[in-house]
Each structure stands twice: as C-alpha cells, then as structure tokens.
C-alpha cells in the first residue's frame, strides 16, 4: 500500500474508528521499537508501560466501535485515550526532551475533523492536559512555569491547527453534502426520466393498439359506407364499404371529390327547398348544406337518399349524418354512414304487389257473391219467402263483414308501407262526429246502450273526412260492442288551445292495465274481449291510431276493468290561425 493510497483511505467520507486509530497504533509501535533500541532515553519505564496499555486499550476500543455501530457516538473516547497514552509516553521518554511529542497531532486531527466547533476546544483541553500532565504528576525536572509556558504555547499552536482542520473539514463536509445532494437530484431526475420513458412507451403501445383496432374496424365495415368530409363536403375518409357500395376506391375520391357529387341533384334541391333556403347562392354549396343542415344544428339526422355510383347506377340508402368535432367542440366536418336499402325497397314492393294481388283476388269473388245475392233479393219474378230472405240477409251480412276485413287488412298494409294517402281539407270535426254517431245509433239501440253526444265546435282540423270518420266509427262501434245492455257510451268533442279532442267513453267491461300498451298492436285482442266473446279481429284500434297519427295527432286511453274505458283522439288545430278565422267567417 502506497502512502497516497493510505491517505486516500483515511480521507474517505467516513473512515471507521479502527482505520483512524491505525496511524496512532503503528507510529506508537515504531516509537516503542526506537525506545527499545535506545534504553538511555527512558526516564520512566512505568510510564512507557502505561502508555502502551493505553494505546492497546484505544486500539481495542476502536475495533469494538467499528464492529458495533450502535455505540459509534462514543468514538471520541479513542483519541482521548490516545492523548493519555501520548502523555505517558512523553513523560516516560524525557518529557520536554521526548522525541515523540509530535504524536499528539494524530488525536488532535481526529478531534478537529469532527463536526462542530466544540471539538476545537476538546483538542485544546486534551493537548493542554497531555503537556501539563508531568507537572500535575509532580515529577518534572523542569520548573512549573517553563512547563506551563510550553504547554500553553504548544496548546495554542495545536488549537489553531485544529481550528484550521475543523474549518477545512467543515468545508469538505459541505462540499461532500452538496455533491451528495447533486447526486441525489441527478438520480431522481434519472428515475423520473425513466418513468416518463416508460409512460411514453405505454402510451405509444396503447396508441398503436387503438390505431390497429381502428384500422381493423374501418376495414371490417364493408356493408356500410362510412364517408368523412370537411366543412365544405370535400371527402377525406372513404371506407371499404363506401368503395364497395359506390364502386370507386378511396384513391379516387379522398381530397378529390365532394360527397354531394354522389347524390341526385334534384333530391338535394328538393331538400333545400324544404329547408327554405333562399334562391341564389347565400350558402356556399346549397346541395351540401341541405345534406348536413340538421347535423350542423347539432342533431344526428337519419334520412333516405339516393346515391349515384361512379358508374351512373343508383341505389337507395338510409344515411345518417353526424358532425365531427375538434377538442374545443367546434364542428370541423361531417361523417356520413349509409346503408343500402335496395333489399328493403324490393321487399316493400313485393309486399305492395302481394297486397294488391290479395285485394284483387279476394274482392273479385266477393263481387260475385254480393252481386248475385242482390239479384236474388231483387228478383221480381220469383219472390222469396220470408225465411229465404232471412237466410239471404245472413249471407249478405257475412259477405260484407269479409269485405270490411279485407279493406282493413289492405289499409293496415298501406299504413305499414307508409303509402296511404290522405285528402287534406280544412274542416270542422262536428259533422264528422255527428255522422259517426248517427250511423252507430241503430247498433246502439240493438245493443240496448244509450248513446250520448256532447259537442262543442272545437275548431278546424286539416285532414281526410272519410278517414277521420272511419276513426270515429271505430271508437264508437268498439265502445258499443264492449258495453253491456243498459250501459252508456258518451261521445264528446272539445277544442283546446292547440288541439281538437274527440273522446269516446263507455261504461263497459274495461281493459286490464297490463294490456293497455299492446292495445294498438295489430291483431291484439284484450282478454276481456275474448272472455266475453266480443267479435272482432283486432284491427280497429290499429287503424284508428294510424289515421290519427297520420293527421299529426295522438291517441290516449284510460281504462278500469269493470268500470269502463275512455279513448281520446287529439288532432292538431289547423294553423295558422288566420286561415282558421277566414274559414270560420265564410
């Protein structure tokens, strides 16, 4: 071990007590050897023995302190014992003339290097005691004064050295702690850097996953066309479904074509007219604006349009339009999702054809049945007997029932396909309700039911008098059918702020609450109806509701089993009011 390496070892931040003690022990050993070879220098053998014992004690103590870290705070006992040893050695080798006084510097360095100014004083006191020790023992040859002066002077010099060492140690410690702090900071910066790197990697992974998911989804949607545009309708996204449906690849449309180029211009113009766009170009692209108007106003729109493919062929689509928003919620474009309605249209047409066929094929034989029955009844040459006429009546009545049923079926089919036409006349409900009540009167009489009418002319409605009459007929005849003899059916007509209300209430058998929500379904029959064998197939209310709905109105029902039922149809009053007052004035 070189000297530099040894010093470096001692200069490590926290040398162990044993390491600090090592120079003392070694140098003391050297001193002992010198003394052994020069016995003439010995003034007191007992003192030298005491000094050796003290150094051994100090070294053992340093070893113990090194091994047992919990008692590290007693480390300063080691240099203290060293001082005692030096005191004895110095005394035993000629005191002031001793060759080994310089050893005193080692414990002083130890003291001085400790943190805190008080250790300077330990060094001073320790030095003073060692130097004055011989006088204290009273065995010095020198005069007390010269001993005191020497002691005081040396102590002062050592104290100044101790103070310098203490200060240098303090600064070294400061530097060390600042270096340590820097190291700590660097370490934590490195750690947080690593953490960020990990987070970034995770985000990247999840982004990649999301991108993959998106690409897969985007590619998987082949039955719907998904088209994205900017605010002007310029296409910037075109999925495989769009490519299939419109028979043109994304390369040919993205950033090149506008979405309205795939629409029929007359449909866009019709829609623009519906939206009351003023004639002339007040909007940048009227066709595109018509397409996205409702989405622009914030509601998702679903509507039927016709697409024109790249090859000029056309297909009906159901198109939903939604706005694309940026981080601030501003609309930056639109998304168009279309699905092909060709099949649905084919099915609807088949259904229409079927309904037409059925209607024709059923009505033709009924024409013969009813026509020939009438001929038989009207035959003046061969008069029928009373009984024969009665049988004929039954046959006619049932043939007519069939006819009505066919009409109802045809009507509900038309309603389902959205193809029933309403005449649009502004008119009062009063004559319609009166006519319905009048025609129901004979049936009411037959059933022993009292028919009461309360009418206030509630205002004009716009609609088809035949269909509205049919709706009233249905409600009134239903009420009569479901009311036992002795009961009452009340028909009221009233006007409210925005609607005309026709209510038909009966004192009949009522409808169980659990069945009320199915009441308007096709072919549904209330359990009270089947239980009481009331005839019917369950189309009347379906038709009534369809008629009312087609007029922009609503139906409501209240019922209590065994007490009665109350049906209301609410029709919107024709607007604007000016038209109404003009009509009323006529």
């Amino acid at each position, binding site marked *: 071990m070189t000297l530099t390496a040894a010093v470096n070892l001692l200069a490590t931040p926290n040398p162990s007590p044993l390491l600090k003690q090592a120079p003392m022990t070694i140098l003391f050993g050297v001193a002992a050897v010198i003394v052994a070879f020069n016995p003439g220098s010995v003034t007191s053998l007992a003192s030298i023995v005491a000094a050796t014992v003290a150094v051994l004690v100090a070294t053992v103590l340093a070893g113990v302190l090194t091994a047992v870290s919990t008692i590290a705070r007693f480390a300063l006992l080691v240099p203290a014992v060293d001082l005692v040893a030096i005191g004895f050695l110095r005394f035993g080798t000629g005191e002031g003339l001793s060759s080994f006084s310089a050893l005193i510097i080692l414990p002083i360095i130890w003291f001085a290097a400790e943190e805190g100014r008080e250790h300077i004083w330990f060094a001073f006191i320790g030095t003073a005691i060692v130097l004055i020790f011989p006088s204290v023992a009273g065995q010095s040859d020198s005069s007390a004064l010269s001993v005191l002066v020497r002691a005081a002077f040396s102590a002062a010099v050592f104290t100044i050295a101790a103070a310098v060492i203490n200060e240098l140690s303090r600064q070294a410690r400061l530097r060390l702690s600042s270096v340590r702090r820097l190291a700590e900071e660097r370490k934590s910066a490195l750690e947080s850097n690593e953490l960020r790197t990990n987070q970034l990697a995770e985000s990247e992974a999840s982004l990649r996953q999301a991108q993959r998911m998106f690409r897969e989804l985007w590619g998987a949607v082949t039955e719907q066309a998904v088209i994205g545009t900017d605010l002007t309708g310029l296409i910037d996204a075109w999925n495989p479904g769009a490519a299939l449906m419109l028979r043109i690849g994304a390369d040919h449309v993205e950033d090149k074509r506008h979405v309205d180029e795939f629409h029929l211009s007359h449909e866009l113009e019709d829609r623009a007219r519906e939206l009351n766009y003023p004639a002339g170009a007040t909007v940048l692209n009227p066709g595109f604006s018509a397409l996205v108007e409702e989405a622009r106003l914030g509601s998702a729109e679903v509507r039927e349009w016709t697409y024109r493919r790249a090859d000029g062929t056309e297909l009906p689509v159901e198109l939903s339009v939604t706005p694309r928003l940026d981080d601030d919620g501003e609309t930056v474009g639109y998304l168009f999702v279309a699905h092909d309605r060709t099949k649905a249209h084919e099915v609807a047409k088949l259904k229409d054809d079927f309904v037409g066929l059925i209607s024709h094929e059923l009505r033709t034989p009924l024409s013969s049945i009813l*026509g020939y029955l009438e001929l038989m009844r009207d035959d003046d040459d061969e008069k029928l007997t009373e009984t024969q006429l009665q049988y004929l009546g039954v046959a006619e009545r049932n043939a007519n029932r069939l006819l009505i049923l066919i009409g109802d079926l045809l009507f509900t089919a038309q309603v389902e396909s959205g193809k029933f036409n309403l005449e649009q006349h502004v008119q009062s409900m009063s004559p319609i309700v009166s006519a319905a009540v009048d025609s129901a009167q004979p049936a009411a009489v037959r059933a022993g039911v009292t028919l009461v009418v309360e009418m206030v002319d509630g205002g004009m409605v716009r609609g088809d008098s035949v269909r509205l009459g049919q709706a009233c007929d249905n409600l009134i005849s239903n009420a009569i059918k479901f009311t036992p003899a002795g009961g009452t059916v009340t028909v009221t007509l009233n006007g409210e702020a925005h609607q005309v209300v026709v209510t038909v209430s009966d004192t009949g058998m009522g409808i169980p609450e659990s069945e009320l929500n199915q009441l308007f379904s096709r072919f549904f029959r209330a359990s009270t109806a089947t239980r009481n064998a009331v005839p019917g197939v369950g189309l009347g209310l379906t038709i009534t509701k369809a008629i009312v709905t087609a007029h922009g109105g609503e139906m409501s029902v209240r019922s209590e089993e065994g007490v009665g039922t109350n049906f209301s149809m609410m029709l919107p009053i024709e607007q604007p009011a000016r038209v109404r007052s003009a009509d009323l004035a006529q």
Partner: protein
Amino acid sequence: MTAAPHKTSVLVADDDADIRVLVGIAVRKSGLELVGAAADGNEAWELVNALKPDLVVTDVSMPGLTGLDLCRLIHADGELSGTRVVLLSAAVDEQAHIAGLDAGAIDYLIKPFSPRELAERLVALTQSSTARQ
C-alpha cells in the same frame, strides 16, 4: 225513346265469367242492349272495333290490355268518338280512381258493386247522352 227505338249497345269486358254475366244482367235490367262480352283486353279491343258499341263496361285489371289501356285507345281513336267507357275496379285507392278518369272513362265503379246501382248509373248515362243529342 219515341221515334227511333235505338237501344244503347253495350260491350262487357272482364276476365271473370261470373262478373261478365252479372254485368250483362244489369245491362239488360237497365233496358240496354248487350252486344258482346270479352274475357280479356285484346279481345275487347277487337270487339270494340268490330261492334262500335255506345258503352263499354270494363274491368281495369285484365290479361292483355288493361281497362285503362282500352280506355285510352278508344279515347284516342277518332272513329270511336261515340263509344264511352265505364270502369269497374277492385282497387280502392283514390289514385286508381283518378287514373281511370284521366284515361277518359266517364264513370268508375268499385268492386264489389251493386248490380242495381250499375243499372241505375247506366240508365242515367244513357239519358244524359240522349239529352245531349
């Protein structure tokens, strides 16, 4: 009905035989003369050209020419200006009715029809045309 007892001639066209007979009875009851009966549109068109009847009572949906086609052909033919058409149809909607009148029919009855009513209408139509003459 005094000097020249020219009975109004009527042609019936319907693919359903029972209906043809029924219409024929109504025609006779109304005092008109049934001159022919056709089972499809093409036959009807031949008979119209051959017989030049005053009235044609025809079904709308028939094999071959439809009642509407027949109506249009008659209407467009100058030689048949004296022939008028009454349509019988199993269709119930308003559009069909309008289409019939657009094609040039003077009346339109919905099946099932009452033979009595058909007879009354035919009489009324004959009288109004006699009055015009």
